[in-house]
């Protein structure tokens, strides 16, 4: 490799500013798109995995009322899931360690001493602390007797505590959910935002019985989470739960479930499949942008070669070998594309971080993503330079100088 010639070829970017600008623009956009996709893809994957871990853990099963609601719409009254259903499941299956029922009210207005706020109200049992692995930071969780007598006690998230009570101590204070008064007995451990970007500290947890009778006036639950003693039993236990529930709901063979069962392994499979698709197609789409940039670069460089025939002839006359001419045009093309790509990687990282901030994905900057994009850009740059370089090298010097 001829260092003097390589440096000289780098300087050609300045001689052909417009050409260089167009080539750089192409590789800039391509590299930015690729960086954005790879970096956010990595961060999203991390986020999904930690969220699945947080929500489920390896040894849990979630039962939801309403069957395959997502695909066929709500089933209305046909979809009944009751506390008795879950009691029966729990009694029948000794592999179950614990379970927790759930009812939710997404946007309830709550008040306390003149302050108002909107919060998500969750009804749960005293086992929720164990089953969902989230306890209280201050105060105490409500207990089984509280649930049994439908006590009007509430655990509030930090966001709710701040909105209703500012800096005052919320423990022992009273708040109103709708018109029902509750006493705050604890402040929930911080959670932050979940996968959907929802603030899980903007929540109030009350006993399931209180939720059903005094807040919603229903006799069904929306869902329940079941913990299995041994993670390796999750799949079989999920089948057993399905069998018991079908018996209790008197579903004839061939009729679909009027409930849905989700296990961590199932979610994991779904997430993996989605991830694989995203991990394949998004970078592919971005790589196509880079490919188009390379084709544009090759075309512009071919035009440049045609415009510089006499320069090439002159270089041959003063002693450039065929491979020197090739090297020059490959370096000119690759260096120009690479410079655009470097700027594109920086821009892509910034865009990725902005996107991640909106989607609550945390930090996305990754050396791996940057290096991958840099390597891909370098390779496309060299490939884009090959065709113009060959054209330049084929010129006969005597003819080129005429």
């Amino acid at each position, binding site marked *: 490799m*001829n260092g*003097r010639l390589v440096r*000289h070829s780098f300087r050609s970017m300045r001689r052909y500013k417009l050409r260089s600008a167009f080539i750089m623009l192409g590789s800039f956009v391509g590299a930015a798109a690729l960086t954005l996709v790879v970096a956010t893809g990595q961060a999203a994957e991390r986020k999904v995995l930690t969220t699945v871990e947080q929500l489920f853990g390896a040894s849990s099963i979630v039962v939801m009322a309403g069957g395959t609601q997502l695909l066929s719409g709500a089933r209305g009254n046909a979809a009944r899931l009751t506390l008795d259903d879950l009691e029966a499941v729990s009694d029948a299956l000794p592999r179950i360690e614990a379970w927790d029922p759930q009812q939710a009210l997404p946007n309830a207005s709550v008040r306390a001493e003149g302050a108002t706020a909107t919060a998500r109200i969750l009804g749960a049992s005293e086992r929720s602390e164990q089953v969902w692995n989230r306890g209280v930071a201050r105060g105490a969780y409500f207990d089984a007797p509280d649930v049994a007598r439908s006590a009007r006690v509430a655990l509030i998230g930090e966001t709710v505590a701040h909105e209703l009570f500012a800096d005052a101590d919320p423990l022992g204070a009273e708040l109103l959910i709708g018109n029902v008064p509750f006493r705050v007995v604890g402040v929930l451990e911080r959670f932050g935002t979940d996968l959907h970007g929802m603030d899980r500290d903007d929540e109030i947890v009350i006993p399931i019985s209180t939720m059903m009778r005094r807040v919603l006036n229903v006799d069904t639950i929306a869902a329940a989470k079941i913990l299995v003693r041994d993670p390796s039993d999750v799949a079989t236990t999920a089948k057993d739960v399905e069998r018991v529930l079908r018996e209790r709901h008197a579903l004839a063979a061939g009729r679909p479930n009027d409930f849905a069962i989700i296990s961590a392994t199932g979610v994991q499979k779904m997430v993996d499949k989605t991830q694989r698709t995203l991990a394949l197609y998004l970078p592919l789409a971005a790589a196509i942008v880079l490919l188009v940039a390379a084709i544009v670069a090759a075309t512009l460089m071919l035009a440049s070669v045609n415009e510089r025939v006499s320069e090439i002839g*002159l270089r041959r006359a*003063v002693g450039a070998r065929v491979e020197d001419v090739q090297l020059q045009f490959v370096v000119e093309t690759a260096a120009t594309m690479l410079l655009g790509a470097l700027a594109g990687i920086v821009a892509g990282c910034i865009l990725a971080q902005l996107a991640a901030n909106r989607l609550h994905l945390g930090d996305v900057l990754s050396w791996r993503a940057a290096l991958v994009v840099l390597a891909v850009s370098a390779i496309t740059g060299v490939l884009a330079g090959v065709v113009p370089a060959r054209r330049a090298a084929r010129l006969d010097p*005597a003819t080129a*100088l005429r």
Partner: protein
Amino acid sequence: MSMIELHDIRKTYTRPTGETVNAVAGVSLAIERGEFVAITGTSGSGKSTLMNILGLLDRPTVGRYTFDGDNVATLGVREQARFRNARVGFVFQAFHLLPRTSALENVELPLLYSDRKSVDGLGRKALEAVGLGDRMQHTPSELSGGQQQRVAIARALVNEPDLLLADEPTGNLDARSADEVMTILGDLNRSGRTIVLVTHDAAMAAHAQRVVRIENGVLA
């Protein structure tokens, strides 16, 4: 033994129509080291083809060409490039300077392809030799035609070649600039440089010690 010995050099082209053209049809010529030879002829006489053969930009179809006793007509493509780089300097009618590139960088162009370990200061020295020491950072568009051709001469000299080949070097210049360029060539020859000047202009050829006339591919 002369520095350059051409023996019965012929160059035949085949036109796309199939017709063959004898651009050079049997030229024998010897040039001594230190000589200033002008090759004259009308356009189409074969003088440019002869110059290309002398500078190894083109290969004769038939004939022997020895340079300092070495047969150079049969050199491979790489060896030809090395020969042009180290032993020949070219000056063209159209200057062929790189646009938007400083005079110094233009002059240093042959050094990019040289085997020399150190090239420091050679470009500067060559530019000073043609009286452009104060124009090193100027680009061709900032220089007059005569100055541009002097930059091209400096480029031809930067590698200290044995032979300077000038193809109609004054063809694009006004009379004053042409005189300047011919004066420089004359000075170079007086300091020992071997020069072959190709021109159709008898007034320019008169600067040479010896004039060789070529007509229809043969020496007249």
